[in-house]
């Protein structure tokens, strides 16, 4: 049986026994100069988790400040920096690179039976660019902070703010190249390095989602780069692109910014959808229902994502006709998202469902993405958006999508692939406690904010009306439960590195290729290049009988 497979049963020869990508070579230098996609993936994983921790601390500080209607622990300018850094760290340091650069880097080659990505050195360069960008962002924090909001809206960011806007935006600019290079690498790898027999339709659906994500990364990120560069020039040399006192147009900045940043929302969510698909398929023990529908809906979301940026700007002063067109197109994001949802349910139907820790995250993903997706319909409606725009309703909605869906899928994926990456099993009981607190704390914190938003509470407010205080306090209490949940999860995973039992090759009895090598894998991934004879998620005949 696959779930008890040992190294011997995988047919590894005695020479590779006991060797893996972690112990092949040793020392910091061997890591810093590695071109192994697995080691790069691990370094990305550690980096994005640090980014998540940083963003999380700022999040808890923001919530703590909002415990009371006036000053609680910090003054207004510190608060403005805290929410800006929360947003910037979570978006640029954590969520955009999170799944693709860590789990994607590690598993994309394994899942197609390849030895590495197409351009291993470029892969390492992309990690270094991420680090350099992150250093600029951290430098901004210590040299005066940033208080513009993660959106860097002009003319505040170009002419008024006295904080380190240039350092922060330059950091984001550099990290953009990291994102482009990763996307490019994945596209070429998927086209050129699939194992014999691994046709496009035999690829695990996670890879379709990464493919769609990569297309967006390559096509949209340059626009962000140009925009931020213009912003830097405007701030430093007063060139007059966006600032009306110099002859510029502040609404133009919003068009440029959202032309990237809306597709970027799908850079964030598509990989999460892909991870959820893997978890649901593995733990239902059956082939994914509607494989092609899920695959093409990823591509459809990627394409539609380029046509809906204006829905961030319904009240910005853009033309009424533009708003109407953008609203109409926005609703078509709902269709492929709905198709995915239905097919995930179809995958559970008639399956043999195990409630492993990753599966709990997978089911939580369906629940939270359901809420996150459906509440998007409110904001797509022109008239309703007039009331809800820039209120806590929007905050709640995108946290349900970004955190409730993507971050939950990321942590699900982390638990799913942890045994493969580290060769260790974690304490399932403790992991369940961590999950439960995260799930409860998340809904506690953010569902409350839907109510705050419809009642008119604006975003990014340091002081607020007394009448909103009870709900704000309630939301803050939830954030403590949420923080505790993540803390327990981190402790659980960290502990497993020391005390965890050795992981078998395929602990979840999964049908995809990355489980057909030892845990952790050898540097070359597979001792013999695999030949694929089965469809995606299909099991050998004797096993399904």
């Amino acid at each position: 049986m696959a779930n008890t497979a040992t190294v011997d049963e995988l047919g590894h020869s005695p020479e590779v026994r006991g060797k893996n990508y972690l112990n092949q070579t040793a020392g910091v230098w061997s890591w810093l100069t590695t071109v192994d996609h697995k080691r790069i993936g691990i370094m990305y994983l550690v980096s994005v988790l640090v980014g998540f921790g940083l963003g999380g601390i700022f999040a808890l500080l923001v919530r703590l400040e909002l415990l009371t209607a006036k000053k609680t622990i910090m003054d207004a300018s510190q608060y403005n920096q805290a929410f800006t850094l929360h947003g910037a760290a979570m978006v640029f340091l954590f969520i955009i690179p999170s799944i693709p650069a860590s789990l994607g880097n590690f598993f994309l080659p394994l899942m197609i039976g390849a030895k590495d990505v197409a351009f291993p050195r470029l892969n390492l360069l992309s990690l270094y660019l991420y680090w350099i960008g992150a250093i600029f962002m951290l430098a901004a924090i210590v040299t005066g902070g940033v208080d513009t909001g993660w959106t860097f809206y002009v003319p505040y960011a170009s002419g008024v703010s006295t904080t380190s806007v240039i350092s922060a935006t330059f950091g984001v600019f550099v990290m953009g190249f990291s994102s482009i290079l990763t996307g490019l690498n994945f596209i070429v790898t998927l086209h050129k390095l699939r194992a014999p027999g691994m046709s496009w339709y035999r690829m695990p659906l996670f890879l379709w989602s990464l493919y769609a994500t990569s297309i967006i990364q390559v096509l949209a990120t340059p626009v962000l780069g140009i925009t931020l560069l213009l912003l830097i020039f405007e701030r430093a040399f007063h060139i007059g692109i966006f600032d009306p006192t110099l002859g510029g147009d502040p609404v133009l900045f919003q068009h440029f910014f959202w032309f990237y940043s809306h597709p970027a929302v799908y850079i964030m969510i598509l990989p999460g959808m892909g991870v959820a698909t893997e978890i649901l398929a593995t733990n239902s023990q059956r082939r994914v229902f509607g494989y092609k529908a899920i695959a093409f809906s990823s591509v459809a979301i990627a394409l539609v994502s380029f046509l809906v940026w204006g829905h961030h700007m319904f009240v910005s002063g853009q033309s009424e006709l533009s708003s109407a067109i953008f609203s109409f197109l926005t609703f078509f994001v709902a269709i492929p998202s709905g198709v995915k949802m239905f097919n995930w349910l179809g995958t559970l139907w008639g399956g043999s469902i195990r409630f492993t820790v990753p599966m709990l995250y997978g089911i939580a993903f369906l629940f939270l993405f359901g809420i996150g997706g459906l509440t998007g319909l409110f904001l797509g409606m022109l008239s309703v958006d007039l009331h809800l725009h820039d209120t806590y309703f929007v905050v709640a909605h995108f946290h349900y999508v970004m955190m409730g869906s993507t971050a939950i899928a990321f942590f699900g994926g982390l638990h799913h692939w942890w045994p493969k990456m580290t060769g260790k099993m974690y304490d399932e009981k403790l992991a369940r406690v961590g999950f439960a607190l995260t799930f409860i704390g998340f809904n506690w914190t953010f569902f409350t904010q839907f109510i705050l938003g419809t009642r008119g509470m604006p975003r990014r407010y340091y002081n607020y009306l007394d009448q909103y205080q009870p709900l704000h306090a309630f939301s803050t209490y939830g954030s403590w439960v949420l923080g505790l949940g993540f803390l327990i999860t981190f402790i659980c995973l960290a502990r497993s590195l020391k005390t965890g039992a050795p992981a078998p090759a395929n602990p979840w009895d999964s049908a995809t290729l990355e489980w057909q090598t030892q845990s952790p894998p050898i540097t070359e991934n597979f001792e013999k290049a695999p030949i694929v004879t089965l469809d995606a998620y299909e099991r050998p005949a004797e096993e399904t009988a």
Partner: protein
Amino acid sequence: MRLDPIELGSFWMPKQSSTIAQEIDTAWYIVYWLDVVMFVGLMVPLAYFMYRYKRRTAKDKVSDVTHSTTLEITWTIIPSIMVIGLFFVGLSGWMKAMVAPGNALEIRTTAEMYMWTFTYPNGNVSVNELVVPKGQPVKLIMSSKDVLHSFFVPEFRVKQDVVPGTYTTVWFEATENRDTILFCTEYCGVGHSDMMARVRVMEKADYDTWQETGLMPGEKPLPPAELGKKLYATRSCNTCHSLDGSRIQGPTFKGVFGRTEQIADGTSVKVDENYIRESLLEPNKKVVSGYPAVMPTYKGLLKETDIDALIAYLKTVQ
């Protein structure tokens, strides 16, 4: 500023205090109930499958159905029709919110870090207080002096960004004879969350009286010195002129009336009714020596009665 809270009309929404609020709320409830039905429609099967298909043995028989074209088409087309319907529901209310009636009262609105200034058709000005008549469409012609701001009145369900270098407009017709709150909803800096204003809705007759006399409904005319004291605070005299003899931007008001001041050009002047009047209307004509000539003119911003009141008040500051 003391503001009354926003009153709730339901669990979710503030009271409906404008003519378009009801249509926007109806649209909100349509998508709300649709979402509730769809969410339950997704979660009930999810819960049922979790129960029904929970693994019993390692050899559970699993379904080998991998797709259904009929189902795929069904769950593509039905949601498509639903969301197109939602689009039109949203469009309809929004078109009404975008097009102001021709007879709307136009109020020029200026946003800056961190205050709202409203200029009415007869030249009257109010700061951080928007006064509008009930039952008449009001159209705001808005612009910003510095960064982006946004005009949001939750009870009216209207929102529009205020942009430097261009005009944006918003309109509403208030239906409730009561005060409510205006928020700035585009992040604009350190004072963003304090950039609120009171919206005072009153009967048309009361509005006309206020325009003419500055008196709110039920308000008796103040004695000149008291009105002057109020103006000293509300028209920002106090940001430059102290009452206790300390120097801020301009000369202190302590004992100002009757004092003889050295003027920058070398002459001197005794502070009397005419000098105060002149300094309000043409402040840079006779600047007291040693002070910067930075005071803005109040020409057109103060009524005759206001000037009289300020003079009366300054006589009392000793």
